[in-house]
Protein backbone atom coordinates (compact mmCIF):
# COMPACT_ATOMS: atom_id res chain seq x y z
CA UNK A 1 0.00 0.00 0.00
CA UNK A 2 2.48 2.68 1.02
CA UNK A 3 5.90 1.04 0.73
CA UNK A 4 8.18 1.55 -2.27
CA UNK A 5 10.87 -1.01 -3.07
CA UNK A 6 13.65 0.67 -1.13
CA UNK A 7 11.53 0.85 2.01
CA UNK A 8 10.81 4.58 1.69
CA UNK A 9 7.13 5.24 2.17
CA UNK A 10 5.39 6.70 -0.87
CA UNK A 11 3.73 9.96 0.07
CA UNK A 12 0.03 10.25 -0.66
CA UNK A 13 -0.99 13.77 0.25
CA UNK A 14 -4.49 14.97 1.00
CA UNK A 15 -4.68 18.71 0.34
CA UNK A 16 -7.47 20.66 2.05
CA UNK A 17 -8.11 24.17 0.75
CA UNK A 18 -10.55 26.91 1.77
CA UNK A 19 -9.28 29.49 -0.73
CA UNK A 20 -9.51 33.06 0.51
CA UNK A 21 -12.49 32.30 2.75
CA UNK A 22 -12.88 31.58 6.44
CA UNK A 23 -14.19 28.02 6.74
CA UNK A 24 -13.31 26.84 10.25
CA UNK A 25 -15.90 24.05 10.10
CA UNK A 26 -13.99 22.34 7.29
CA UNK A 27 -10.56 22.87 8.83
CA UNK A 28 -11.81 21.54 12.17
CA UNK A 29 -13.44 18.45 10.73
CA UNK A 30 -10.44 17.72 8.48
CA UNK A 31 -8.28 17.85 11.61
CA UNK A 32 -10.67 15.60 13.59
CA UNK A 33 -9.49 12.16 14.67
CA UNK A 34 -12.39 10.53 12.84
CA UNK A 35 -11.45 12.00 9.47
CA UNK A 36 -7.70 11.57 9.96
CA UNK A 37 -8.18 7.90 10.88
CA UNK A 38 -10.39 7.37 7.84
CA UNK A 39 -7.84 9.00 5.53
CA UNK A 40 -5.05 6.88 7.02
CA UNK A 41 -7.19 3.76 6.60
CA UNK A 42 -7.67 4.67 2.92
CA UNK A 43 -3.91 4.78 2.39
CA UNK A 44 -3.07 8.47 2.63
CA UNK A 45 0.10 9.48 4.45
CA UNK A 46 -0.01 13.26 4.70
CA UNK A 47 -2.65 15.88 5.38
CA UNK A 48 -1.86 19.44 4.32
CA UNK A 49 -4.43 22.09 5.24
CA UNK A 50 -4.59 25.55 3.63
CA UNK A 51 -6.71 27.31 6.26
CA UNK A 52 -7.14 30.79 4.72
CA UNK A 53 -8.70 33.39 7.01
CA UNK A 54 -9.90 30.87 9.62
CA UNK A 55 -9.04 31.06 13.30
CA UNK A 56 -8.96 27.34 14.17
CA UNK A 57 -5.40 26.03 14.14
CA UNK A 58 -4.88 22.34 13.30
CA UNK A 59 -2.46 20.26 15.34
CA UNK A 60 0.77 19.57 13.45
CA UNK A 61 2.10 16.02 13.48
CA UNK A 62 5.10 14.29 11.96
CA UNK A 63 3.16 11.05 11.58
CA UNK A 64 6.12 9.06 12.88
CA UNK A 65 3.86 7.15 15.25
CA UNK A 66 2.08 5.35 12.42
CA UNK A 67 -0.55 7.98 11.78
CA UNK A 68 -1.23 10.76 9.31
CA UNK A 69 1.38 13.54 9.10
CA UNK A 70 -0.42 16.87 9.48
CA UNK A 71 0.72 20.34 8.45
CA UNK A 72 -1.04 23.61 7.66
CA UNK A 73 -0.54 27.12 6.32
CA UNK A 74 -2.79 30.15 5.73
CA UNK A 75 -2.14 31.28 2.16
CA UNK A 76 0.22 30.42 -0.64
CA UNK A 77 1.11 32.04 -3.93
CA UNK A 78 1.41 28.59 -5.50
CA UNK A 79 -1.76 26.69 -4.64
CA UNK A 80 -1.43 25.04 -8.06
CA UNK A 81 1.77 23.29 -6.93
CA UNK A 82 0.01 21.89 -3.88
CA UNK A 83 -2.89 20.72 -6.01
CA UNK A 84 -0.49 19.06 -8.45
CA UNK A 85 1.27 17.07 -5.73
CA UNK A 86 -1.93 15.97 -4.00
CA UNK A 87 -3.50 12.51 -4.33
CA UNK A 88 -6.82 13.81 -3.04
CA UNK A 89 -8.16 17.35 -2.77
CA UNK A 90 -10.81 18.43 -0.28
CA UNK A 91 -11.97 21.91 -1.15
CA UNK A 92 -14.50 24.60 -0.28
CA UNK A 93 -17.14 25.16 -2.95
CA UNK A 94 -15.47 28.08 -4.73
CA UNK A 95 -15.68 27.71 -8.50
CA UNK A 96 -12.03 28.67 -8.94
CA UNK A 97 -10.79 25.91 -6.61
CA UNK A 98 -13.17 23.39 -8.13
CA UNK A 99 -12.21 23.94 -11.76
CA UNK A 100 -8.50 24.34 -11.07
CA UNK A 101 -8.56 20.92 -9.36
CA UNK A 102 -10.73 19.24 -12.02
CA UNK A 103 -8.54 20.57 -14.82
CA UNK A 104 -5.52 18.96 -13.12
CA UNK A 105 -7.43 15.67 -13.10
CA UNK A 106 -7.25 15.32 -9.32
CA UNK A 107 -9.91 13.47 -7.29
CA UNK A 108 -11.96 16.06 -5.45
CA UNK A 109 -14.35 16.22 -2.52
CA UNK A 110 -16.15 19.56 -2.31
CA UNK A 111 -17.38 20.56 1.12
CA UNK A 112 -20.19 23.09 1.15
CA UNK A 113 -20.11 25.80 3.82
CA UNK A 114 -23.54 25.74 5.44
CA UNK A 115 -22.86 28.95 7.34
CA UNK A 116 -22.88 31.05 4.19
CA UNK A 117 -25.97 33.07 3.46
CA UNK A 118 -27.33 32.60 -0.05
CA UNK A 119 -25.43 29.40 -0.68
CA UNK A 120 -25.60 29.42 -4.44
CA UNK A 121 -22.12 27.88 -4.49
CA UNK A 122 -23.63 24.54 -3.50
CA UNK A 123 -25.53 24.49 -6.83
CA UNK A 124 -22.28 24.11 -8.74
CA UNK A 125 -20.88 21.42 -6.43
CA UNK A 126 -24.15 19.45 -6.51
CA UNK A 127 -24.43 19.66 -10.30
CA UNK A 128 -20.85 18.44 -10.82
CA UNK A 129 -21.42 15.68 -8.22
CA UNK A 130 -24.52 14.57 -10.11
CA UNK A 131 -22.38 14.36 -13.23
CA UNK A 132 -19.91 12.27 -11.18
CA UNK A 133 -16.98 14.65 -11.61
CA UNK A 134 -16.47 14.98 -7.83
CA UNK A 135 -17.93 14.07 -4.46
CA UNK A 136 -19.99 16.62 -2.56
CA UNK A 137 -20.22 16.65 1.23
CA UNK A 138 -21.03 18.78 4.25
CA UNK A 139 -18.59 19.16 7.16
CA UNK A 140 -20.57 16.62 9.21
CA UNK A 141 -20.70 14.03 6.41
CA UNK A 142 -17.06 14.33 5.31
CA UNK A 143 -15.79 11.20 7.04
CA UNK A 144 -18.62 9.09 5.61
CA UNK A 145 -17.86 10.42 2.15
CA UNK A 146 -14.18 9.52 2.54
CA UNK A 147 -15.07 6.06 3.85
CA UNK A 148 -17.45 5.32 0.99
CA UNK A 149 -15.72 7.01 -1.96
CA UNK A 150 -14.67 5.06 -5.02
CA UNK A 151 -12.28 7.35 -6.88
CA UNK A 152 -12.28 5.05 -9.93
CA UNK A 153 -15.95 5.81 -10.42
CA UNK A 154 -15.29 9.52 -10.91
CA UNK A 155 -15.71 10.76 -14.47
CA UNK A 156 -12.80 12.89 -15.74
CA UNK A 157 -13.76 16.49 -16.44
CA UNK A 158 -13.15 17.82 -19.96
CA UNK A 159 -12.11 21.49 -19.85
CA UNK A 160 -14.53 23.88 -21.44
CA UNK A 161 -14.03 25.98 -24.51
CA UNK A 162 -14.82 29.66 -24.81
CA UNK A 163 -14.49 29.76 -28.62
CA UNK A 164 -18.25 29.41 -29.22
CA UNK A 165 -18.82 32.63 -27.26
CA UNK A 166 -16.16 34.45 -29.25
CA UNK A 167 -17.77 33.21 -32.49
CA UNK A 168 -21.23 34.37 -31.42
CA UNK A 169 -19.92 37.79 -30.40
CA UNK A 170 -17.96 38.16 -33.67
CA UNK A 171 -21.04 37.22 -35.66
CA UNK A 172 -23.17 39.78 -33.81
CA UNK A 173 -20.58 42.49 -34.40
CA UNK A 174 -20.54 41.63 -38.11
CA UNK A 175 -17.08 40.17 -38.40
CA UNK A 176 -16.70 37.66 -41.24
CA UNK A 177 -16.74 34.01 -40.12
CA UNK A 178 -13.40 32.24 -40.18
CA UNK A 179 -13.69 29.18 -42.36
Amino acid at each position, binding site marked *: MGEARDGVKVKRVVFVTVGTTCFDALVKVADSQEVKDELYRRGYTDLLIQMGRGSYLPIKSTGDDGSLAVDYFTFSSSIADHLRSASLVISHAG*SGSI*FETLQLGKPLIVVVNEDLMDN*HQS*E*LAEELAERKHLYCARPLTLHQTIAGMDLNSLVPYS*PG*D*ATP*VAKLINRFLGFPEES
Partner: protein
Amino acid sequence: MSLQKARVFENSLVDSGAKGISAEFMQIYRSREVGQSYVTSVWTTLVATAHALWLMIKIRPQVVLCNGPGTCIPLCVIAFIFKVVGIRWSSIFYVESIARVKRLSLSGLLLYKLQIADQFFVQWPQLQRKYPRARYVGCLM
Protein backbone atom coordinates in the same frame (compact mmCIF):
# COMPACT_ATOMS: atom_id res chain seq x y z
CA MET B 1 -5.76 37.77 -7.83
CA SER B 2 -7.79 37.88 -11.03
CA LEU B 3 -5.90 41.02 -12.04
CA GLN B 4 -2.56 39.26 -11.58
CA LYS B 5 -3.71 36.21 -13.54
CA ALA B 6 -5.13 38.37 -16.32
CA ARG B 7 -1.87 40.34 -16.59
CA VAL B 8 0.21 37.14 -16.75
CA PHE B 9 -2.08 35.71 -19.45
CA GLU B 10 -2.01 38.88 -21.55
CA ASN B 11 1.78 39.07 -21.32
CA SER B 12 2.05 35.45 -22.40
CA LEU B 13 -0.03 36.25 -25.50
CA VAL B 14 2.28 39.14 -26.36
CA ASP B 15 5.39 37.04 -25.69
CA SER B 16 4.16 34.24 -27.93
CA GLY B 17 3.43 36.70 -30.72
CA ALA B 18 -0.31 36.03 -30.66
CA LYS B 19 -0.94 39.74 -30.29
CA GLY B 20 1.08 42.94 -30.49
CA ILE B 21 0.06 45.01 -27.47
CA SER B 22 -0.94 43.82 -24.03
CA ALA B 23 -4.37 44.80 -22.70
CA GLU B 24 -4.73 47.83 -20.47
CA PHE B 25 -6.05 47.27 -16.99
CA MET B 26 -7.89 49.75 -14.81
CA GLN B 27 -9.83 49.37 -11.60
CA ILE B 28 -13.34 50.69 -11.03
CA TYR B 29 -15.18 51.40 -7.82
CA ARG B 30 -17.68 48.93 -6.39
CA SER B 31 -21.23 50.12 -5.84
CA ARG B 32 -21.45 48.18 -2.60
CA GLU B 33 -19.11 46.05 -0.52
CA VAL B 34 -20.42 42.75 0.88
CA GLY B 35 -22.30 43.54 4.09
CA GLN B 36 -22.19 47.30 3.61
CA SER B 37 -25.20 49.17 5.00
CA TYR B 38 -27.79 50.20 2.43
CA VAL B 39 -27.72 53.80 3.58
CA THR B 40 -24.02 54.31 2.83
CA SER B 41 -24.50 52.17 -0.32
CA VAL B 42 -26.53 54.99 -1.88
CA TRP B 43 -23.48 57.25 -1.77
CA THR B 44 -20.97 54.61 -2.92
CA THR B 45 -23.29 53.61 -5.78
CA LEU B 46 -23.41 57.25 -6.92
CA VAL B 47 -19.62 57.46 -6.76
CA ALA B 48 -19.28 54.19 -8.70
CA THR B 49 -21.78 55.41 -11.30
CA ALA B 50 -19.99 58.75 -11.73
CA HIS B 51 -16.69 56.89 -12.14
CA ALA B 52 -18.29 54.53 -14.69
CA LEU B 53 -19.70 57.50 -16.62
CA TRP B 54 -16.27 59.12 -16.77
CA LEU B 55 -14.70 55.86 -18.01
CA MET B 56 -17.38 55.34 -20.68
CA ILE B 57 -16.92 58.85 -22.05
CA LYS B 58 -13.12 58.60 -21.96
CA ILE B 59 -12.85 55.10 -23.51
CA ARG B 60 -15.98 54.97 -25.73
CA PRO B 61 -15.81 51.19 -25.95
CA GLN B 62 -17.32 49.42 -28.92
CA VAL B 63 -17.77 46.29 -26.85
CA VAL B 64 -18.60 45.88 -23.18
CA LEU B 65 -18.04 42.27 -22.08
CA CYS B 66 -18.79 41.41 -18.47
CA ASN B 67 -19.13 38.32 -16.36
CA GLY B 68 -21.20 38.93 -13.31
CA PRO B 69 -20.09 41.02 -10.39
CA GLY B 70 -22.26 44.01 -9.48
CA THR B 71 -19.35 46.24 -10.48
CA CYS B 72 -20.38 45.81 -14.11
CA ILE B 73 -23.92 47.13 -13.61
CA PRO B 74 -23.15 50.89 -13.68
CA LEU B 75 -21.11 50.43 -16.86
CA CYS B 76 -23.84 48.42 -18.57
CA VAL B 77 -26.61 50.78 -17.50
CA ILE B 78 -24.68 53.80 -18.76
CA ALA B 79 -23.89 52.06 -22.06
CA PHE B 80 -27.59 51.20 -22.37
CA ILE B 81 -28.76 54.74 -21.61
CA PHE B 82 -26.33 56.10 -24.22
CA LYS B 83 -27.87 53.67 -26.72
CA VAL B 84 -31.40 54.77 -25.82
CA VAL B 85 -30.58 58.46 -26.32
CA GLY B 86 -28.87 57.68 -29.61
CA ILE B 87 -25.17 57.52 -28.67
CA ARG B 88 -24.53 54.03 -30.04
CA TRP B 89 -20.97 53.41 -28.94
CA SER B 90 -21.17 49.99 -27.28
CA SER B 91 -22.55 46.50 -27.79
CA ILE B 92 -23.10 44.84 -24.43
CA PHE B 93 -22.37 41.17 -23.84
CA TYR B 94 -22.94 39.45 -20.51
CA VAL B 95 -21.66 36.00 -19.56
CA GLU B 96 -23.27 34.63 -16.37
CA SER B 97 -20.89 33.03 -13.92
CA ILE B 98 -20.20 29.29 -14.22
CA ALA B 99 -21.23 29.01 -10.57
CA ARG B 100 -24.80 29.91 -11.52
CA VAL B 101 -26.51 26.64 -12.42
CA LYS B 102 -30.17 27.06 -11.49
CA ARG B 103 -30.60 30.73 -10.59
CA LEU B 104 -29.19 33.92 -12.10
CA SER B 105 -27.09 36.31 -10.06
CA LEU B 106 -28.64 39.67 -9.13
CA SER B 107 -26.56 41.37 -11.85
CA GLY B 108 -27.68 38.74 -14.36
CA LEU B 109 -31.32 39.09 -13.37
CA LEU B 110 -31.22 42.89 -13.74
CA LEU B 111 -29.54 42.80 -17.13
CA TYR B 112 -31.83 40.01 -18.39
CA LYS B 113 -35.15 41.43 -17.17
CA LEU B 114 -34.37 44.99 -18.28
CA GLN B 115 -33.04 43.64 -21.60
CA ILE B 116 -29.92 45.71 -21.27
CA ALA B 117 -27.48 43.19 -22.78
CA ASP B 118 -27.37 42.68 -26.54
CA GLN B 119 -26.46 39.05 -25.93
CA PHE B 120 -26.82 37.18 -22.63
CA PHE B 121 -24.83 33.97 -22.22
CA VAL B 122 -25.36 31.20 -19.66
CA GLN B 123 -23.14 28.18 -18.99
CA TRP B 124 -25.72 25.64 -17.85
CA PRO B 125 -28.75 24.30 -19.76
CA GLN B 126 -31.07 24.71 -16.76
CA LEU B 127 -30.69 28.49 -16.98
CA GLN B 128 -31.37 28.51 -20.70
CA ARG B 129 -34.64 26.64 -20.10
CA LYS B 130 -35.64 29.11 -17.39
CA TYR B 131 -34.54 32.21 -19.29
CA PRO B 132 -35.29 31.57 -22.97
CA ARG B 133 -33.71 34.79 -24.26
CA ALA B 134 -30.36 33.60 -22.88
CA ARG B 135 -27.90 31.74 -25.09
CA TYR B 136 -26.46 28.48 -23.72
CA VAL B 137 -22.74 28.15 -24.47
CA GLY B 138 -21.73 25.32 -22.12
CA CYS B 139 -19.09 25.48 -19.39
CA LEU B 140 -16.34 27.86 -20.35
CA MET B 141 -13.81 26.56 -17.78
